[in-house]
């Protein structure tokens, strides 16, 4: 349960978030009416969100460090461990997409971005501290032509068709479409 520093940090942040929620519920439960309760929920959401952003920064920090030093392969190996440990966390897939794109594998990069965006739409929200909207927009703009041309030249090729489908999915999400 407390096998490494990340786990300890995760549990500490979780405990803080729970304590904050309890505090807000106690305060919000007193006289003051619905407006105060609504305000409490907003604060609660904000706190949970900030805790998540903080945690992501700590968890994926080593991957970012390796990436910044140009060691993409080592970053991917580290990331693979984290994705297995936290399969429901979108951030790993987004980082994986960015690294794979840098390494020249557009199809796999697209698949990772799609998975990340499906898990958490915050990455497309321009106002989110986690936003990768500009990067995803660039990816879609740059790859749409080459992948589209590839799919058109090989109409029976299912891999090209799947890549085009992924580009179109990201386009639709960027345009504000829902799943």
């Amino acid at each position, binding site marked *: 349960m407390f096998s490494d520093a990340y786990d300890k940090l995760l549990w500490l942040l979780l405990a803080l978030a729970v304590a904050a929620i309890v505090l807000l519920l106690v305060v919000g439960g007193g006289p003051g009416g619905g407006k105060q309760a609504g305000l409490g929920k907003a604060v609660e959401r904000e706190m949970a969100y900030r805790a998540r952003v903080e945690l992501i920064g700590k968890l994926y920090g080593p991957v970012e460090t390796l990436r910044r030093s140009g060691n993409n392969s080592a970053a991917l190996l580290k990331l*693979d461990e984290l994705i297995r440990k936290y399969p429901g966390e979108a951030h790993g897939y987004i980082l994986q997409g960015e690294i794979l794109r840098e*390494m*020249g594998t557009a199809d796999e990069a697209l698949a990772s971005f799609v998975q990340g965006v499906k898990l958490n739409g915050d990455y497309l929200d321009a106002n989110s501290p986690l936003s990768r909207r500009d990067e995803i927009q660039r990816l879609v703009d740059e790859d749409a032509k080459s992948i589209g041309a590839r799919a058109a030249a090989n109409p029976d090729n*299912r891999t*090209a068709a799947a890549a085009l489908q992924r580009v179109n999915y990201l386009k639709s999400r960027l345009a504000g479409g829902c799943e």
Partner: protein
Amino acid sequence: MIRSSLTRLTLILLALLALAGCKAAGKRPVVKIGYMICNSEEETLSRFAPLTRYLSDRCGVDFVMVPIDTHDFEKRFKQGDLAFTHTNSLLYVILRENHGLQLVASEKRGQFGSRSAGAIIARKGSGIEKLADIRGKRMAFGPMLAPTGYLAEYDLMLAAGINPEHDLAYYSIPPGSYKHEKLIYGVLYGKYDVAAAPMLDLEVMAREGKISPDDFVILAQSKPAPYCTFGAARNADPELVKKVREALLALKPGDTAEVDGERLKVLKAAAIDGYEELLDSDYDLIRQMAKRVNMPPYQKY
């Protein structure tokens, strides 16, 4: 008399027809698939037996596995009785250029999907921090026809101005089976200073808990290129080629096949994630590396 003879003759003919019918129903065409031996013959046969059985069930023929050593593959393919091949991407390119092999499907495994990259690794803390530091060091390569265990790393070194033939203390290739694992362990335990490791093997060994990525420094990495590939001989039955491609692309994690009375998951047994339909032009990266490194099918003496 005549009547009785006619009755007897009819009965004999009916019996013969029934026998012929039985024989036809039980017999299916036998088609050979040549499998490049990956780590060992035993491992290759055990990995791909469920897949071969699955293909037989789906395509209505009896596929037979023929395990072949990497270096013997082209010679064996030239004999002409292999309708399908399962090889690494360099062998695919060699057989394509020299014998017109058709691309059927490409295997997906690990983070790069149907691609893998080659890396030059050293042990963390060994003092080898960058590619230039490997001059005068002891190096291990994977098998000579391995795209991401030899070709890619050799190419990376040439691009960095390091000639593996002259600039190392020595280089060798580990003997026997599981060469990729051996050279990774060799670096970890100090037998070699540096090694040419496929990223896929590093990833798989880390997943299996055999190594930690933190134990190594990656000094250089190649661009990811296609890896294991199913091919079909130029003269293979087009309908069967189509059926095999469809069957491979349709494979899902839950699909099973019966081998020796046991029902096994096809993809899990083969340690693969699925199949993709790449284009032959996706293999150009392998072609470019083979030309630069002076390897088959472009080797010039």
